[in-house]
């Protein structure tokens, strides 16, 4: 058994404890911990898996298993895979290069997920809705000013709650730039997922 980092879809509607949002492919008896990407249907988790379970998960088209050696540099092929996978969620990933280790990439991405989890709570408190941010017409190219008012306000409030620096955010800042900045800032903090420090 070894703690393994995975990006997986979310199962469950979240409408009741009997149908809670939970990570796909993580069956009963597997220890895991993770962070959801706000109300988006994705989770970044660490799960305690057997080699056979890792192999099974690697075979799933909609899951991404991250290497166990976090301090290795990404290869060119891995950069392409990571960028393609993250951008589809969508999570900004154009900054991922072969000059970065897996640890650096994971810490920044985990930071974005953590931010979005807090954003989701604040967004519901403000609007009473649980609509994902990335709905019809909203993608990473959207500028801060073009976002709905409650989304803009909640992004600002979330940054303040997490004591993030948002002084560089202006009307033309895109969601891509915003989330990347958040990931970089969150990566400066101690981060744990499941029983792993990353």
């Amino acid at each position, binding site marked *: 058994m070894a703690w393994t980092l995975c990006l997986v879809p979310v199962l469950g509607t979240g409408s*009741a404890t009997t149908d*809670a949002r939970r990570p796909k492919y993580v069956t009963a008896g597997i220890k895991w911990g993770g962070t959801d990407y706000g109300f988006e249907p994705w989770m970044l988790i660490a799960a305690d898996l057997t080699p056979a379970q890792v192999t099974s998960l690697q075979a799933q088209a909609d899951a991404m298993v991250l290497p166990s050696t976090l301090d290795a540099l990404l290869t060119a092929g891995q950069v392409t895979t990571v960028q393609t996978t993250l951008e589809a969620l969508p999570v900004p990933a154009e900054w991922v290069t072969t000059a970065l280790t897996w640890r650096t990439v994971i810490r920044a991405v985990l930071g974005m997920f*953590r931010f979005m989890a807090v954003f989701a709570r604040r967004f519901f408190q403000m609007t009473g809705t649980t609509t994902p941010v990335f709905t019809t017409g909203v993608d990473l190219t959207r500028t801060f000013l073009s976002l709905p008012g409650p989304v803009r306000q909640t992004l600002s409030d979330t940054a303040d709650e997490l004591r993030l620096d948002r002084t560089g955010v202006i009307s033309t800042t895109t969601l891509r730039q915003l989330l990347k900045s958040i990931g970089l800032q969150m990566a400066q903090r101690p981060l744990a997922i499941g029983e792993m420090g990353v």
Partner: protein
Amino acid sequence: MPALDNDAFTYADGVLETVSAAKFTKLSTHNSLTVSSNAVTGTGADAMAVVTSWAGSTTAQYSEAVAGALDANGIGVMIFMDAVNTGYLYEIGDADSVFYKHVGGVITQLGSPATAGVPAHAYRCYMQTPGTLVGSDNGVDKITLPGETSIVSGKPGLFVYGGTPRLDTWVAGDFNEPTPPLAQIYPYDVVQKIG
């Protein structure tokens, strides 16, 4: 961890909110809790209530209750609740115990389940340090979830799923964990810079 509020539910059978003089408020989108034989039961799936008036800390608190009877879903204790539909739930059943996060009615499981609950045991949910959620069984920590920062404040409360399980003798108070300095929470430890 001094107790700041408690309830043994020694009322006539009926609706919890009414017979206990509005001590608890039902979460707006969930089922009611009722009192039966001096214990609390649910009236359907995911019945939740938050204490109406809370003078304790909203950021360092615990919620604890005794399991009267259990089934697969069971009873639960909650912290950091609002009166609408947000909070952390430590649910104890006769099959396992597990944490959930409720954010705006969207329920997300947190981590993997621990061992089954035991009737007459006391179950406690608390935020050990900012971001580390803990569930305990008779004083023994069973689940520890680091890195859970989605919900940071609120009031304690309780949960019962369905009509079979029963919850008794609720108590809540402050969890007196000193707040670490910001530099300890957010030290600069990045060794690589993203270009």
